[in-house]
């Protein structure tokens, strides 16, 4: 972390506007060789946009980018990579149908006699993987591996070329603690080799552990650049969210523990699906927040999908209000007042090319059928109400939902279901990849909904969050329900112990 006089990357006065959104306004940014530089900010602060401007995905409307002192204007990510800037994005952008080795060396395959030298390719891929300590067969197809491993392969791909700048956009969001430690070890090795690493993460612990310097953005504007050692968390958070710390304290005691004793709303007995989740019993009361805890691939999402009818159960039964309900698809579940907000916002949640308004009322409109359109006024009222209630920004109902930041997209998805006034709201990872302010808002919302009598099934990889918010915690391991705990008296350690018990390695399909 020696500070050399000349930054390897220097961005000056960068501005960029999208239709309806000023994503970046006059932002300066510099990155020195041999440092880990954290880019901090809430969702929508412009972190991803700044990265994409650096890596040639977007062209700035104004401002200069220079690499090692020379002005550059990349017109594609390929050019940036050629110049030594490698990127690993938040979502894994690899080809699941190709092998690990092919993914790592895609576009720069070793050649022999005009064809691809597959043996050399596998050998080189194995070397790269060994360098970052990932033990997977380079000849296996990528799709067979869990997302976490795919993420590491993506990093291997990025460092397989000589890179001067490595951009890691939320690389840790799907990694477990061990994998994060491994990643950090690799990052330190690369840093000591003189690589400049730009790192984005919403986990403050990780940022403080790994970064040497940080740049803070808010609403597309530069707020400050600090050495990590010189700025404490509260100051940092205050800079990121730009308001007093009341919100943060509100998170801490967001949920006062209750023992809801309302009637049982949903009861599953022996519900299961082969290959997805073993038969489980579960009952959820009105006004109760039930948390699902477990590792990635432990069957959390699978369980939720059965309750919603997204997948069909092949055993057991489901009672809603004590009446058996055979779910043939999501429509019956929705009609019974069950809502499901998927963890995969992009793939299973939002309809990217439609406006915020259309996305917001989609579920309600679908339930009404196409012959009964929501009157324009009702629609506008609903949209206005929820844009305000969930603080969705920009509050322009006509903006395409794809132009929103992750946190705001999540809020639109939430709002879509809140509009239908569900009795059971299933939230799968509603706070993943979103900033602390939005996280607090969503947690408060869950608590408020429960207080009004909505039952909530809350799924999160962050155990602290589950423990804090849930009245009851259901623990899953290896696609099986292994325990049910009282949220009021359970601590994180206890849950961790249960999850770790048996110490079976994490298993994930796709």
């Amino acid at each position, binding site marked *: 972390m020696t500070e050399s006089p000349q930054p390897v990357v220097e961005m000056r006065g960068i501005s960029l*506007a999208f*239709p*309806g959104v*000023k994503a970046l306004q006059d932002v300066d940014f510099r990155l020195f060789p041999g440092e880990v530089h954290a880019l901090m900010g809430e969702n929508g602060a412009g972190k991803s946009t700044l990265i994409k401007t650096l890596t040639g995905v977007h062209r700035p*409307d104004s401002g200069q980018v220079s690499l090692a002192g020379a002005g550059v204007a990349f017109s594609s990510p390929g050019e940036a990579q050629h110049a030594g800037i490698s990127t690993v994005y938040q979502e894994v952008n690899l080809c699941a149908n190709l092998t690990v080795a092919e993914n790592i060396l895609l576009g720069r395959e070793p050649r022999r006699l005009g064809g691809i030298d597959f043996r050399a390719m596998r050998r080189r891929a194995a070397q790269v993987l060994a360098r970052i300590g990932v033990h997977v067969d380079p000849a296996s197809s990528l799709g067979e591996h869990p997302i976490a491993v795919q993420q590491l392969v993506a990093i291997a791909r990025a460092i397989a070329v000589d890179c001067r700048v490595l951009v890691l956009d939320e690389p840790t969001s799907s990694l477990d603690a061990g994998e994060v430690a491994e990643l950090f070890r690799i990052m330190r090795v690369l840093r000591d080799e003189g690589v400049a690493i730009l790192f984005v993460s919403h986990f403050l612990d990780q940022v403080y552990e790994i970064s040497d310097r940080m740049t803070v953005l808010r609403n597309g504007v530069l707020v400050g650049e600090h050495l990590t050692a010189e700025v404490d968390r509260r100051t940092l958070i205050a800079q990121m969210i730009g308001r007093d710390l009341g919100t943060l304290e509100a998170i801490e005691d967001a949920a006062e523990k209750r023992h809801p004793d309302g009637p049982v709303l949903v009861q599953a007995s022996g519900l299961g699906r082969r290959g997805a989740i073993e038969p489980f019993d579960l009952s959820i009361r009105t006004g109760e927040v039930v948390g699902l805890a477990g590792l990635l691939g432990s069957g959390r999402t699978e369980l939720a999908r059965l309750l*919603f009818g*997204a997948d069909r159960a092949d055993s057991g039964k489901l009672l809603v209000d004590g009446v058996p309900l055979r779910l043939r*698809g*999501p*429509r019956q579940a*929705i009609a019974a007042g069950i809502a*499901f907000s*998927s963890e995969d916002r992009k*793939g*299973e*949640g*939002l*309809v*990217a*090319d*439609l406006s915020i308004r*259309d996305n917001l009322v*989609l*579920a309600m*409109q*679908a*339930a*009404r*059928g*196409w*012959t*009964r*359109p*929501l009157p324009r006024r009702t629609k506008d009222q609903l949209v206005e109400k929820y844009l305000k209630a969930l603080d969705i920004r920009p509050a*322009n109902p*006509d903006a395409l939902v794809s132009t929103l930041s992750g946190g705001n997209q999540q809020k639109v998805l939430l709002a*879509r279901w809140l509009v239908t006034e569900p009795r059971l709201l299933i939230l799968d990872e509603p706070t993943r990849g979103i900033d602390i302010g939005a996280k607090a808002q969503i947690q408060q919302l869950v608590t408020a909904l429960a207080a009004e009598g909505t039952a909530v099934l809350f799924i999160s990889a962050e155990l602290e969050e589950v423990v804090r918010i849930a009245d009851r915690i259901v623990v899953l391991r290896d696609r099986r329900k292994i325990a049910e705990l009282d949220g009021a008296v359970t601590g994180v350690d206890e849950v961790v112990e249960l999850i770790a018990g048996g110490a079976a390695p994490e298993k994930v399909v796709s």
Partner: protein
Amino acid sequence: MKNRLLWPLLALAALLLLNLAVTPSFFALRMQDGHLYGGLVDVLKNGAPTLLIALGMTLVIATRGIDLSVGAVAAIAGAVTCVHIGASGDAGTAFAGMALALVLCAVLGLWNGLLVAGLGIQPIIATLVLMTAGRGVAMLVTEGQIVTVNNTAYRQVGAGFVVLPISILISLLVLGLVAFATRRTALGVLIEAVGVNPEASRLAGVRSRTIIWTVYVFAAVCAGIAGLMISSNVSAADANNAGLWIEMDAILAVVIGGTSLAGGRYSLTGTLLGALIIQTLTTTVYTIGVAPEVTLVFKAVVVIAVCLVQAPKARAALSFRKVAVSS
């Protein structure tokens, strides 16, 4: 969104002006026996079947699908009606025949929908089945002959006039109905949602299958009406050549109109413009006297030009000043 229609509109205007330059009387309209005649009326009349089929195609394409079978369905509609009419000159028989044909077309649409929505076959393959088999069905119906009829009532559909040619009125009526059915109800937005992201739509409770099924039935019925026009115009059913390659013109009209083949957002007005451009182009080929050997090349060049100016990359290359929209 206006921007999206600008280029097709300019292309159409350019083509029309070209015609005006070559044939100064091109825009002239004259009334004769209460019938309106003129170059523009001809364009509309000849373009009516393409427009109808393109309307159905627009909705199919918006759901990420495609329907290659429309030409064959059009041939079947004409064949069934003509065979039913036979030697009869009776108006009732003509209407019964047309009704029969359209019901049959709806059934064919259900078949396409079954393959696509029910069995999950890729639309291009699923409709290819009927594209090839449909001609055979039409041949079967006509027993391989060109069936001619002499029925005044039937003739009206393709060649009749109520001031304007009836075929124009029918296609505009269908356009109006579709616009109403999709934009005044929630059908349009649900179709787009299914087209953009089928899985997200399913999880939001949209009846994706029913919607996909509906658009294929609608496309087939549109093709049926177009088939009636084509056959009625010549008072004959030609199983081999009626509506031949019209699916390509229809797909082209949709694409020129700015609807993406990737599904999602669609524009009926764009499709109307697209259909008009294609028909005007065909007319232009005759008026400016393009040699028959190079007709297809000429058409191809124009179509490529229209598609190019709509492509974001080509447009960026034209380097218009980027205007930041803020609203």
